[in-house]
């Protein structure tokens, strides 16, 4: 199995799921990602920090109502990396379709 093209930052399952959500959304907030990924607050924070550190997501924090809302969006570099990662996965399994999730 060739591992060429796989992005070590995105390859972790939770981070791959987060990137898939963000690649198909203008933005997503912390609560949505936590619910969808079924992770704890601290785990999600850790995963998103790794993506942010890699420059793959941008974070916006706002204080409204009872608490702040943390919103994430994918960056151009993140979008490129995510697509390359999917292409690498498809190459490994031998799928030729260009349709990306």
């Amino acid at each position, binding site marked *: 199995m060739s591992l060429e093209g796989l992005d070590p930052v995105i*390859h972790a*399952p939770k981070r791959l*799921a987060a990137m898939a959500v963000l690649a*198909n959304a203008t933005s*997503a907030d912390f*609560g949505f990602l936590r*619910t969808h990924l079924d992770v704890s607050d601290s785990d999600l924070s850790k995963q998103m920090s790794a993506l942010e550190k890699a420059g793959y997501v941008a974070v916006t924090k706002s204080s409204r109502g009872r608490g702040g809302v943390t919103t994430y969006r994918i960056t151009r570099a993140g979008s490129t990396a995510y697509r390359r990662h999917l292409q690498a996965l498809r190459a490994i399994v031998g799928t030729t379709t260009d349709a990306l999730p």
Partner: protein
Amino acid sequence: MESFSDPRQDLADAERAAAAPYVDYPPTPVWYPPAVGVWAGALVAVMGVDTDALRYASLAVLIGLEVLFIAWYRRQRGVTPSLRRAPREIAREMRLYAVWAVLVLLAVLGAYALNLVLAVVTATVLVTVGLTVYERRYARAAAATRTRLA
């Protein structure tokens, strides 16, 4: 990278996650279609206001309401789906809705040429009915997408 999961499973998980912004959403409030219908009717009614200042002020109020609603809905939903990469079941409903919107616009313009009140009623009724049908079809499409990706 210390360990690797099954790439097929990774792709399937990615596809499920990619659909999440479209299929994971809170139930649409029952008041949403009629509220938007009334909003559309009001928008048409404003076009008939003779006084420029009053017309612009009314337009500003209606646009302000729309902006507030969008902000509230985005916060409720927690995610803003991209319109470009919807799952095929939902993309089909979006295309039908776009066609419906054009037909509504043409109907309202036609009614407006005849009578303002007729145009207001046309906009209110067609937008309300259209959104009600769209919301139901969207929910079915979302359920079909969830089933396909399960």
